[in-house]
C-alpha cells in the first residue's frame, strides 16, 4: 500500500509542490538563519579559535573577552611560565590604533602583537606571504578581509607602507583570518613592534598564551595558574565561549534570529500543515472507500506516515542543499567569510522538520481516522 500512498501524494502536482515548498522553505529558513546566527556570534570567539598553539589564555582578573580586557605588567609572562604544567607561554598584545593608509585616510585598526621569536598567536593560515616575513623590521600582516577594506581590488597590498603611531609599518603578508565581530582591520605584528605601534599605556601585556604540557589538562592548568599567580586563566574553549556569550548577552542578535527561526518553523508548519490537511481532505472519500473495502486504520496510518515521510525527506533535502549551497557560493563574500554550517544545525533542522511533519501528519490523520466508512454511502 506504500506505493499507493506515494502515488496518491504525487498524483496531485500542485499540492505536492506546495508541501515540498513548505518543508523546503522552512528547512532553508531555519538552517540558514541558525547558521548565520551561530556564525555571527561565533565572531566573538574566532579570535581565540584562530590561535591554534595555545590551549589556555591568561589575563588580568578583570578581563572578560578577547576584546574586553585590562593589560597586565610584563612580568606576568614569567610568573605564568613558572607555573607547573606550563609547556610554554608567550605574550600577546592587543590594542586599538589608527593607521594612516598610503592614500592618507585614517582607519581604526586592531593591532595584535605576537611573540617575537615563535610568532605564537598568529592565525592558522596565511592567505599570502610567509609567516617568517613577520621577522623583518617594521613588518605587519593584515587580515584578508581588512586588506579588501583598506585597499581597492587592484591595489598592491604586500609591500605597502602604512603609518602607525608615527611609525613605519610595511605589510609583508596577508593572514587568512575570520573577521571578528567588530570586523575591524587586524594588523598582526611582533610584540616588540606592537609596543611601538600601539599608543602606550603603563602596562601593555594583554594576554599570556599558554600551552599545557602532556601531564596536565588545560583545566588543571587553569586552576593552577589562577591559584599561583592570581591572574585569570581560561581554557581556549571557555574563553572562546566567553566571547560568544558576551555577544549574546550584550546584543539583540539572539532575539532577532530566534524570532526568525521561530517564524520559519511557524510558516513551515502553517504551509505544510494546511497543504497536507487540504490534501488529506481532498482524498478523504478515497480513504473512506479504502476503509470500507477493508483497509485497517494501521495501514491508513502507515500510508499517511509514508506520505509525510516522503514530503519531509524531499523537502528537507532540497532545503538543506540550498542552504548549504548558499554558504558555499557566498564563502567569497566578506560578510560570510568563515561562515560554516555546524553539523548540529542540519541535525537540529531535521528534528524540527520531523516534528513539523509529524505534527501536520497527525492533524491530517485525525480527520482520516475519524471518517466513518459508512460515510461513503452518503
Amino acid at each position: 500500500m506504500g506505493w499507493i500512498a506515494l502515488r496518491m501524494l504525487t498524483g496531485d502536482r500542485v499540492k505536492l509542490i506546495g508541501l515540498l515548498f513548505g518543508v523546503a522553505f522552512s528547512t532553508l529558513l531555519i538552517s540558514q538563519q541558525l547558521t548565520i546566527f551561530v556564525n555571527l556570534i561565533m565572531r566573538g570567539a574566532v579570535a581565540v579559535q584562530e590561535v591554534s598553539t595555545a590551549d589556555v589564555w591568561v589575563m588580568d582578573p578583570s578581563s572578560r573577552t578577547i576584546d574586553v580586557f585590562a593589560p597586565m605588567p610584563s612580568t606576568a609572562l614569567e610568573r605564568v611560565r613558572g607555573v607547573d604544567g606550563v609547556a610554554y607561554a608567550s605574550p600577546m598584545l592587543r590594542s586599538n590604533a589608527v593607521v594612516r593608509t598610503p592614500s592618507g585616510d585614517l582607519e581604526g585598526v586592531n593591532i595584535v602583537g605576537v611573540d617575537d621569536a615563535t610568532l605564537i598567536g598568529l592565525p592558522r593560515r596565511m592567505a599570502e606571504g610567509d609567516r617568517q616575513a613577520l621577522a623583518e623590521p617594521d613588518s605587519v600582516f593584515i587580515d584578508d578581509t581588512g586588506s579588501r577594506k583598506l585597499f581597492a581590488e587592484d591595489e598592491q597590498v604586500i609591500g605597502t607602507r602604512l603609518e602607525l603611531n608615527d611609525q613605519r609599518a610595511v605589510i609583508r603578508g596577508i593572514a587568512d583570518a575570520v573577521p571578528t565581530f567588530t570586523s575591524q582591520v587586524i594588523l598582526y605584528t611582533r610584540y616588540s613592534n606592537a609596543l611601538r605601534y600601539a599608543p602606550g599605556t603603563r602596562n601593555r601585556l594583554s594576554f599570556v598564551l599558554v600551552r599545557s604540557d602532556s601531564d596536565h589538562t588545560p583545566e588543571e592548568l587553569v586552576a593552577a595558574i589562577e591559584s599561583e599567580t592570581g591572574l585569570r586563566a581560561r581554557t581556549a574553549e571557555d574563553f572562546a565561549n566567553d566571547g560568544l556569550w558576551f555577544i549574546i548577552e550584550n546584543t539583540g542578535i539572539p532575539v532577532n534570529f530566534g524570532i526568525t527561526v521561530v517564524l520559519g518553523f511557524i510558516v513551515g508548519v502553517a504551509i505544510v500543515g494546511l497543504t497536507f490537511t487540504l490534501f488529506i481532505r481532498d482524498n478523504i472519500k478515497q480513504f473512506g472507500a479504502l476503509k470500507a473495502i477493508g483497509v485497517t486504520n494501521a495501514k491508513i496510518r502507515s500510508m499517511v506516515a509514508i506520505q509525510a515521510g516522503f514530503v519531509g525527506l524531499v523537502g528537507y533535502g532540497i532545503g538543506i542543499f540550498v542552504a548549504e549551497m548558499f554558504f558555499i557560493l557566498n564563502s567569497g563574500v566578506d560578510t560570510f567569510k568563515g561562515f560554516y554550517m555546524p553539523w548540529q544545525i542540519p541535525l537540529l533542522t531535521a528534528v524540527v522538520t520531523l516534528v513539523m511533519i509529524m505534527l501536520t501528519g497527525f492533524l491530517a490523520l485525525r480527520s482520516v481516522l475519524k471518517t466513518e466508512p459508512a460515510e461513503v454511502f452518503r
Partner: protein
Amino acid sequence: MSVGIAVENIVKEFPITKEESIRVLHGIDLEINTGELTYLIGESGSGKTTLISIIAGILFPTEGRVNIFGTDIYDLTDTELVNFRLDNIGFIFQQYNLLPALTAAENAAVPLYANGIAREEGVERGKAILDALNIADQCEKLPRQLSGGQQQRVAIARALIHEPRIVVCDEPTAALDAGSGRRVMDLLREVALAPDRAVIIVTHDNRVFDLADRIIEIEDGRITHDGKELPDAH
C-alpha cells in the same frame, strides 16, 4: 440458492442531542439469498442506506444481529471486521470513489493490494477482470480519463476482483445516463451474480427495476414490501 445474510431485529438510532436520538430502523428482520439480485428501494431518508451500511459491516447497529454466512459480524473485533469485509464484501459506490492517482487496472486491484499482493500481480489480475468487463483497452488510463460508465465498470471490477460472497452496491447507476446505467446494471447482473453470492443493490432508479430478482421496499425504517414485483405504489 441459500440464505447468505440473515438480519435479525436491527434497530439503529442516531443521536441528535445528548439526550435525544432519532430511530432510523425499527427492528428489521430480513434474509437475503445467494444467487439473487436483491434491490433495496425506498424514499430518501427511509433508512435504506443505513440498513445497507449495517449489512455491509461498516455501521454498528444499536440492536440486533447480522449473520453473514454463519458469522455474526458485529461480534467480531474491529480488525477482524475490517478483514472480514476485505475478504467477503465487494463495494460499488455511487461516486465510484476510485483513487485518482492509480490506473484503471490498479484501481481494480485495490482489494488485492490491501491484502498485501504485489503491485505487478495486482495489475495483471486487474487487467484480466477489466478484460472480462470489456474495458481492457482502458486499463492504463487514470480514472479522470474515463467516462462515468467506464469508471463504474472499473468500480465493479474492484468489487469483484477478490471474489467476495456479497456485493453491496449503493446507487450504482445514479450518476449515469439511462443507457450507461442500463448497461452497467446488465453487466452487474451478468458478472456479479453467482450461485453462492448475494448481490444487494440500493437504488431508486426505476429504469432498472426489471432486472431485480427481489425487491424490498423500506419506508420509515420498516420493510413495507418484499417480493419479486414492484410494490403497487410504483
